[in-house]
């Protein structure tokens, strides 16, 4: 019998003028999996992200989520199907307090539907903030909150719609080791709390990533060059080559 993957990408291609940002990429993500997506600068990680979440339309290829084709759907419809994302550069609603930022996501059809019975929207927003450790700042306007906290806010906003697939775009970018450690722990805990939720993480900081994911996909110049367990990837010659350059005596 043909098994249905949570996310199934087949031959995805996107060109910007003469540049092929994503070239014939195929990948699968299973339910409850924690997957890392790495690659050097300009490898097409963010473009792939934008393709999967509908912010950019692909030139060719198919994206199937829970067996359903989602190519061409508007971003907000994809979120309501169960794929939530964060942004590499934080995008808070700066006029709104932290708690209201989360409530925007709870106001979306999927977010509103997922609020448990007898629970108010405020209550749920407060719970989400507690999960990522932002309770203290709940009423602070987002424009006064530091970058590290906004990174966590991005995660809380994405979690508000209770996605089946959570996509984090460089969640550790610009964080100090302490904050990285905290976020790593909360992502791991999040995964334990909701084991059926798949998480896809794009990251530069390989060290933090390799500790939490079970499988890594490596992109280079828009193409998938390797896939496997973190330990295997760390030893993979091709991967070392694209990260460190040629000449094995350095690596």
């Amino acid at each position, binding site marked *: 019998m043909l098994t249905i993957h949570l996310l199934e990408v087949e031959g995805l291609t996107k060109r910007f003028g003469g540049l092929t940002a994503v070239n014939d990429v195929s990948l699968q993500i299973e339910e409850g999996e924690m997957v890392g997506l790495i690659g050097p600068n300009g490898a097409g990680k963010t473009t792939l992200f934008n393709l999967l979440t509908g912010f950019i339309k692909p030139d060719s290829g198919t994206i199937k989520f829970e067996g359903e084709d989602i190519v061409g759907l*508007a971003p907000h419809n994809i979120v309501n199907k169960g794929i939530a994302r964060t942004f590499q550069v934080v995008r*808070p609603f*700066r006029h709104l307090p932290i708690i209201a930022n989360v409530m925007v996501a709870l106001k979306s059809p999927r977010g509103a539907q997922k609020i448990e019975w007898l629970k108010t929207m405020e209550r749920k*927003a407060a719970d989400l903030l507690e999960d990522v450790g932002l309770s203290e700042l709940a*009423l602070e306007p987002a424009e006064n909150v530091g970058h590290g906290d906004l990174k966590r806010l991005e995660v809380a906003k994405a979690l*508000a719609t209770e996605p089946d697939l959570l996509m984090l775009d460089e969640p550790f970018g610009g964080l100090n080791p302490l904050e990285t450690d905290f976020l790593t722990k909360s992502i791991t805990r999040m995964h334990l709390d909701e084991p059926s939720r798949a998480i896809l993480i794009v990251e530069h900081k390989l060290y933090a990533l390799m500790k939490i994911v079970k499988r890594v996909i490596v992109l280079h110049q828009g193409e998938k060059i390797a896939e496997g367990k973190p330990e295997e990837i760390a030893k993979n010659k091709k991967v070392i080559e694209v990260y460190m350059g040629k000449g094995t005596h350095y690596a």
Partner: protein
Amino acid sequence: MVISYVRRAYSSFAAHVFDIPPRLMAFMFFLILLFLPLAGISSSKMSVLIYANIFAIFAVSWDLLVGRTGQISLGHALLFGIGGYSSALLFKYYGLPTWITIPAAMLFSILVSLLIGFPCLRVKGPYLALVTMAVPLIIQLTFKWGPLYSIFGGDTGIRDLPRFFDLILIREQRISVYYLTLLLLFISSVIIYKIANSKTGIVFISILDDEVASKACGINITKYKLMSFVISGLFASLAGCIHAHVLEGVDPSMFSLTISFFAVIMTFLGGIGTIYGPIVGSYIYSVLDSFVLPELPKLLERFNVDITSAFESAKLLIFTLIVLILVIKWPRGVARFTTDKLKDLEEARDLDERGPRIWKTYKKKKK
């Protein structure tokens, strides 16, 4: 402990999320307006206050669309004119009474808002401003167009509409109109205020702040933009209807840029994004326009400068200067400036009683 803190926090949630003026102040403001006619103001001056009420409704509705949703429209006169004209046409062809034509015109304006809003709201920022500016001008030309004279009445418009104040009977007509417009202003501003400060209002602000992030939160931004456009248009058309029946006539100047810019000037005077600000702005504008500025030529005459002939055309220039100075001096508007001062006083008192609140840090950074 954290849980209890958060619980306490969101119980007073709305008060923290939005710029809510001290309730006492809003109450005082309406109380003053309520007793204003008793101060023995002459009939001609009364009509200035009536227009202040009408344009306050208009400016408040503009503030919801622009100040809270961030969809810059410079053609809000569109719905103002549509409201007035549809009410007038309903009277002209079917002879319906005012209390039917006004609601019907408002319903019709929903349709127009949807028709115009759907294509217009696809563009953003300055382009949206330009498109919205063009639409009422096109309609204005259509209404002036010769072949349609028998329907829209060309430049003269439609005259002899039923008077608005037939609804209630107070000895003095002007005062009864004043109270009626004041009542409508109160009702519509409370409704808009409630909408803007609801959870839907949070989504409006999220669109103002970052459309892409709103989409990523699963919000159908087109739907919410249209919603804001329709609600705003509904009250703009109400203002148009009242204007038409107070003036007992409509003409194509209702679609003019001047009307659209009234909303902009009044909102900036009072404080954009406050919802209550435009009411204050409308009163400041009307008082300046009718009571203060006309004194200017008389004042200058003493110094043997005669500007009476050029004065009317120079009025808008003077207002632009005033707004420019205000925007630089008090970018958050007069109304917000006052409430900020009052809140600071309150907070200074709170500080003694209950210890610091987290808002304190926010306020300090602002300055």
